């Protein structure tokens, strides 16, 4: 038997789905025809269905109303309904429309009635919402540029009839990266790469820095890099909501439930490179625990793991990390708690405050106009806080953040912390960069996770990349093949030189 490669598998699926669609305007949930149907009566039924659809509700409304009927199977199952999952669902539905049945499974508990999912601990909504092109990995720069272009046209992309277009409230203020003598050469190299790929920023010497930002203490700073275009921050909740509403409007189905396991199907005829013949076991369906406590299986054609910080745990359910051969390598994504503090400093820097990143990793930015700021810092490796809950350690600010930002900005010596919150990074412990692509063992499992704090700005680009992988079989817009799971197996990390 020949290998059922991913390309041919998807095409087989699409042919099947096309047949199902031709079988009538309604969507059948099974692939087998029930009884023999006379061709003439079938033609009349199809035409009647099409005429009825012309006058009926748009696709999405119908799906949204079928709240109590959970699909038994689907074409593409996305585990995780945060920015990555919703972006993937949006791009898939926008390209394939009725050609692919997409289901998104999200576990965050419902708080508001009417089945509105309320994301309380998802990383997306707790994010600071920054977007920047100042990376050293070319793929990250390209993804951010794409993200900025998407956000610029978000009102057109995510427009849903009958609702206001989403307003992501982008504040274009730029990022300012500061480097000491040690890091100046690296900063300059990064700057050259960013210019090459189309970003616009400027290198500033300490005198220029002092001129532009008089509140800055440039004592030990050798070089600064200031972003001049497409950098700033926006509202992650609006973007997530926009993606979700548009995906639902185009026909994606959002299910509330927690993934608790996979069902496997032994396929001894399938030959996969690197797997002993006769031992291949494919992923067949996902077991979901619904809010009422029932376990509900969903059979899928393709699965995408976009579960954020819990992706490592979900991958373990699929035997990634506790199997043999390719399956011995676990998905190295785990939650890491990060704190964000909101503080007030009336005589602090004014309007001219980009998101300033200190060489120590401490960052702060202006929030609003009345002297409020937001700041944080990634802890050192040995001081990682526990990830059991989202409680904030206020001592962390006093010990690890305040000394650095007070040194950088004299006025911050007299600041006062108003509030704080914590969120989880979907931290890739291997090299802190995203993992995108097909898993080497499973021919129907895609990964889109591990972005370690940059998920929100790379969301639109990654969604599009996964859509192209699924439908076109390869990357077409941005080539993310370097970010595949392979590098974990071969042990080649792609390290970012400034990551906070």
């Amino acid at each position: 038997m020949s290998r059922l490669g991913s390309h041919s598998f998807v095409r087989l699926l699409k042919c099947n789905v096309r047949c199902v669609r031709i079988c009538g305007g309604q969507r059948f949930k099974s692939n087998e025809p029930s009884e023999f149907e006379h061709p003439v009566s079938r033609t009349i039924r199809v035409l009647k269905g099409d005429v009825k659809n012309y006058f009926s509700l748009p696709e999405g409304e119908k799906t949204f109303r079928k709240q109590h009927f959970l699909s038994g199977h689907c074409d593409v199952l996305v585990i995780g309904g945060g920015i990555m999952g919703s972006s993937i669902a949006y791009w898939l539905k926008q390209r394939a429309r009725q050609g692919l049945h997409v289901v998104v499974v999200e576990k965050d508990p419902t708080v508001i009635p009417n089945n509105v999912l309320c994301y309380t601990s998802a990383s997306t909504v707790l994010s600071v919402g920054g977007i920047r092109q100042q990376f050293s990995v070319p793929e990250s720069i390209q993804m951010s540029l794409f993200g900025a272009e998407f956000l610029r046209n978000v009102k057109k992309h995510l427009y849903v009839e009958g609702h206001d277009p989403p307003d992501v409230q982008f504040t274009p203020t730029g990022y300012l990266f500061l480097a000491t003598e040690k890091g100046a050469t690296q900063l300059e190299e990064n700057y050259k790469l960013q210019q090459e790929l189309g970003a616009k920023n400027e290198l500033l010497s300490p005198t220029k820095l002092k001129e532009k930002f008089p509140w800055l203490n440039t004592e030990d700073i050798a070089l600064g890099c200031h972003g001049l275009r497409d950098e700033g921050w926006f509202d992650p909740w609006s973007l997530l909501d926009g993606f979700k509403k548009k995906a639902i409007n185009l026909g994606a189905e959002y299910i509330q439930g927690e993934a608790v396991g996979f069902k496997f199907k032994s396929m001894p005829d399938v030959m996969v490179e690197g797997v002993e013949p006769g031992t291949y076991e494919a992923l067949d369906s996902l077991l979901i625990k619904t809010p009422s406590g029932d376990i509900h299986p969903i059979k899928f054609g393709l699965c995408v793991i976009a579960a954020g910080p819990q992706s490592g745990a979900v991958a373990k359910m699929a035997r990634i990390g506790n199997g043999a051969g390719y399956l011995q390598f676990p998905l190295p994504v785990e939650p890491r708690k990060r704190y964000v503090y909101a503080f007030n400093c009336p005589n602090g820097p004014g309007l001219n405050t980009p998101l300033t990143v200190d060489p120590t990793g401490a960052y702060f930015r202006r929030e609003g106009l009345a002297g409020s700021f937001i700041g944080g810092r990634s802890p050192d490796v040995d001081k990682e806080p526990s990830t059991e809950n989202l409680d904030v350690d206020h001592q962390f600010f006093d010990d690890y953040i305040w000394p650095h930002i007070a040194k950088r900005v004299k006025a911050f010596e007299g600041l006062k912390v108003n509030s704080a919150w914590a969120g989880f990074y979907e931290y890739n412990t291997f090299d802190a960069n995203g993992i995108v692509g097909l898993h080497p063992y499973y021919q129907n499992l895609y990964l889109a996770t591990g972005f370690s704090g940059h998920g929100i700005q790379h969301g639109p680009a990654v969604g599009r990349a996964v859509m192209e992988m699924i439908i076109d079989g390869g990357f077409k817009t941005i080539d993310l093949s370097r970010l595949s799971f392979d590098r974990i197996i071969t042990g080649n990390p792609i390290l970012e030189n400034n990551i906070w």
Partner: protein
Amino acid sequence: MRLSNFESSVRGSEDNQLSGWRKSFKERGEWTSKFELFSPKTSSEGLIMRMIRAPIDLRPGVIKRWWKNKKEEYEMFEQSYIPDRHEILGNDLAAAHFVMYRGGKVKFSNENKWRAGKEHGLPNQKEPGYDLEAVDASDVNLYYQGLFNFKDLKYLKSLRLRNCRHMDDWCLDYISGELGTLEELDLQNCQNITERGLACLYRLQHLRYLNVNGIPQNRSFELTCLLLEETIPGLTIEGVDYVKQ
């Protein structure tokens, strides 16, 4: 397959791209599938495929909106940056040609009068001495893509964008990052601008005059204008009323 064999052949391989162990049968040339006939060789699948997949929606409102989007797309494409134009004419003349073709006016630093109209008599090649000093693109209906034509203008002092509906915060981001020499910026009636875009104008350190008449205002907007006047010495903002009755 023994695990130790597998591990030694995998780790230590330098090339991260699909090296020997990851090349599929197809890529090694050992086997091909008949499904290759259906593979989309290019990513653009054309109008027909998209029409087949989308539900049939022929309501007049939808068709009108589709037509309006198409016209906008065309207009944005028309206004996009053409590298050849800037190579042949130089940055200043290219921007001047762009603006005047669309009904705007320009002023060069060595002359005292505004030039306008399609028959402008400007040179068709790079010529020294033509430094763009002022651009009046009011009522030109400029899009974000159109702004890219204003590139590397070292002497530009004044930019007027009255009644340009499509100017929004992203455009201000571009203007403040690219046109650092601006002294006068007129944004009258640009309805899509908010205080967030206005705040990034702090980058224009030489700005002396800013007109924000007709832009929907609220407390944050007025506060931003106040802070802008503080941050940029010598700036006056017209069109904002700080003292409310």
